[in-house]
């Protein structure tokens, strides 16, 4: 039950983090939007999964079952420059590394790539061990437009 409350709390936090970044209304105000993934909180809640270099994958879907994926991006790709992480060691955001990032050093992840949609979309994300197919569980980020 305690874990359930923590997960609900995390979802709420994620939505609060997102809220100021997303203009309401069809089309929004244009330009880049920023979303934040509080990975450290998730890692503590779920227990440490990865301790090696890691990447992050984001999927955006028009339906709640994620059968109609309209965006699928990974930090281990040409989209790497759209990903940043907040380093526990340095206390600053840093660009994603081409080697991946030590999972234990990530407090937060932000995605600054294009997220302009004219309809409601659902977002999920997961951590991937760099250069492998070892995926963490999908984690929710909620719905946005």
């Amino acid at each position, binding site marked *: 039950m305690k874990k359930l409350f923590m997960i609900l709390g995390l979802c709420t936090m994620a939505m609060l983090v997102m809220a100021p970044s997303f203009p309401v209304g069809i089309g929004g105000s244009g330009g880049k939007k920023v979303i934040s993934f509080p990975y450290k909180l998730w890692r503590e809640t779920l*227990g*440490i999964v990865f*301790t*090696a*270099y890691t990447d992050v994958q984001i999927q955006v879907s028009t339906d709640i079952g994620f059968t109609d994926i309209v965006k699928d991006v990974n930090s281990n790709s040409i989209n790497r420059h759209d990903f940043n992480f907040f*380093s*526990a*060691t340095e206390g600053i955001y840093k660009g994603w590394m081409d*080697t991946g990032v*030590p999972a*234990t*050093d990530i407090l937060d992840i932000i995605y600054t790539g294009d997220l302009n949609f004219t309809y409601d979309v659902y977002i999920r994300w997961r951590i991937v061990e760099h250069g492998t197919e070892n995926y963490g569980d999908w984690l929710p980020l909620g719905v946005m437009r």
Partner: protein
Amino acid sequence: MRKLLPITLIILIFPGVLFSWTGTDPTVEIISPDGVNDGQEVSIPVKVVVKQYNTEQGIDYGCYYFFCDTDNDGIIDSDEWSGRVKIPKGQNINDINQDTAFTIDYLSIDKVEQNKNYFIVGVGVDLDGNTSCDTTLIVGENYNGGGASGIVDKAISWFKIKGLKP
């Protein structure tokens, strides 16, 4: 002559291949709490920051042992070593070969108590299983390292808990 060429190539290439598989000593440094300037007082939560690298060959993993210095003498005793736990959460730090510092764990009140001294011992393991020190000989080492186990000063940290961070 045609037969000699492949043999010559094998003779020339084989040592190179063999050398590339030869293990090297991985290096582990405990940056915070400082492994070199030991005895510092640190606040809870204790952020544990390390480097682990191997300049000639990738590192397989690093492991970090945390335990209490129950008699506060700065020397690792047998019973103290027996009480060690691996951080973070019993796991190794896999595959990370990085000579820039990164955080591996935060030690909170479930692990540390005010006014007590603690050790963190870092061990690196390379792709061939060679280790940066021999943990079977770790008992008797002090916080400066340099004893029979081969552990170096920067791979062993000894610190005192001051209290909660304000």
